[in-house]
């Protein structure tokens, strides 16, 4: 099997990437693997490599051929393909679909676990509380416990107001 970059030497390094439901294989010779940084298995180089060869096609397909552009910073898919970096925090929303598969292959999970900024933590706690109260309310209504339901409704009103306040600050 020949190296898919130089198409000259025998491929000795084989990589498989699964993005979404598609499997992509990359076969490289020792030298190309080295220049692409595969032997130094950092997330960086691997991402760049995959971006250059496989993921870029996925990204283009996800956009239906039309160039997606970040409304806030003007960053495009082509820029992403070239740099392997994004333009601004908003880009994560703009390119969410294309990034999903990439994040899945790069990381342990697709949801953040760990530290949350304090300001964010308050509103996350509040929204969790709100959900819990709403659940309790439907249960109370179901059980025709209207006294409890009235109390819960007031509590929900308060929690919702606080949530909008935190979000606003």
């Amino acid at each position, binding site marked *: 099997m020949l190296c898919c970059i130089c198409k000259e030497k025998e491929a000795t390094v084989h990589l498989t990437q699964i993005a979404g439901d598609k499997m992509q294989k990359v076969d490289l010779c020792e030298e190309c693997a080295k220049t692409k940084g595969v032997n130094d298995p950092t997330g960086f*180089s691997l991402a760049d490599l995959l971006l250059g060869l496989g993921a870029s096609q996925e990204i283009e397909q996800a956009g239906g051929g039309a160039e997606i552009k970040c409304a806030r910073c003007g960053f495009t898919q082509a820029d992403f393909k070239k*740099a392997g*970096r994004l*333009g601004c925090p908003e880009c994560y929303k703009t390119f969410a679909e294309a990034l999903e598969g990439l994040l899945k292959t790069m990381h342990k999970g697709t949801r953040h676990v760990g530290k949350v900024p304090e300001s*964010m933590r308050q509103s996350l706690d509040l929204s969790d509380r709100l959900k819990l109260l709403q659940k309790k309310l439907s249960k109370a209504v179901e059980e025709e416990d209207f006294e409890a339901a009235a109390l819960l409704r007031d509590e929900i009103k308060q929690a919702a107001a606080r949530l909008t306040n935190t979000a606003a600050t």
Partner: protein
Amino acid sequence: MDIHDFLIPPAESARRKGPHDRIVMSSRVRLARNLKEAAFPGWAKKPERIRLLEMIRPAIESLPEMKEAFSATMDNLSTLDKQILVERHLISREHAAKSAGSGLVLNREETLCFMINEEDHLRMQALRPGLQLRQAWTAIDQADSALERKLEYAFNPEVGYLTACPTNIGTGIRVSAMLHLPGLVLAEQINPIIQSVNKLGLAVRGLYGEGTEALGNVFQVSNQMTLGESEGAIVERLEKVLAQIIEHEENARGTLLEKKPKMVYNHIGRAYGILANAHSISSKETMNLLSLMRLGVDVNLFPGVDRALVDEMFILTQPAHLQKQHSEKLSAG
């Protein structure tokens, strides 16, 4: 202030002690953070980078732990100064290449260092001698929590802290330790160890990180994945793997001394011979020979010699440090 007047003399910094410092030279925890309303440094135009720098730098300077810190913009540091900071592992090679619009704030003890507008708006790291990942994490976590009250970070509840490169998203954390592993290299066991560490999702790199050679048998082990695992879990996982590497290194040294003492003494003796008598030597060869000297001290071949002396030489014999000493001597003479 001149960076040279600020930096701790190598003789002093090499003397800092930490748990397992026979094998673990240092521990480091780095966090990547970005501001909500701005383009990442690689995409932002120069005026915007300057605006951000002017916003972030005072916020860092005002932290209580950054009292009497060294603070500079990268265009105010000479190439040699930046290189010296790289050789001290205080900034990355990438950051050394930056100029106007990027900056650096370093605390008095050289245990906390903030790079502004490197790949992300903020790259902050805590450093400790020996194996002290937990302590380093606690220190940087505290600084980060204090900064979070002054700066509005780009954070998304689903995917965490947003970073320029998707490889750092989530916790934005890189936990790493610098290991001296001459035993595993001499026993030719280093490659299988690197491979098995890689399989655990951890990266093994050379002395200066990303894509660098393992000069002087020094290797950096760090986490690669930042999303889907908490900071504490990452620190714990690394601690477990490092404990095993330490054990393997100790075993390799023990077995070598028991089964092939002549081979080990020969390597160390020759290293000493060359270092003592050579008239000209490259930095690279020096590093590799100093590594053997460090091993020599560890196995009591040089009674009365402190390991700190070898570690000081490790710092002083690097290219920029040599250049600096040389030019100073010339101007003094």
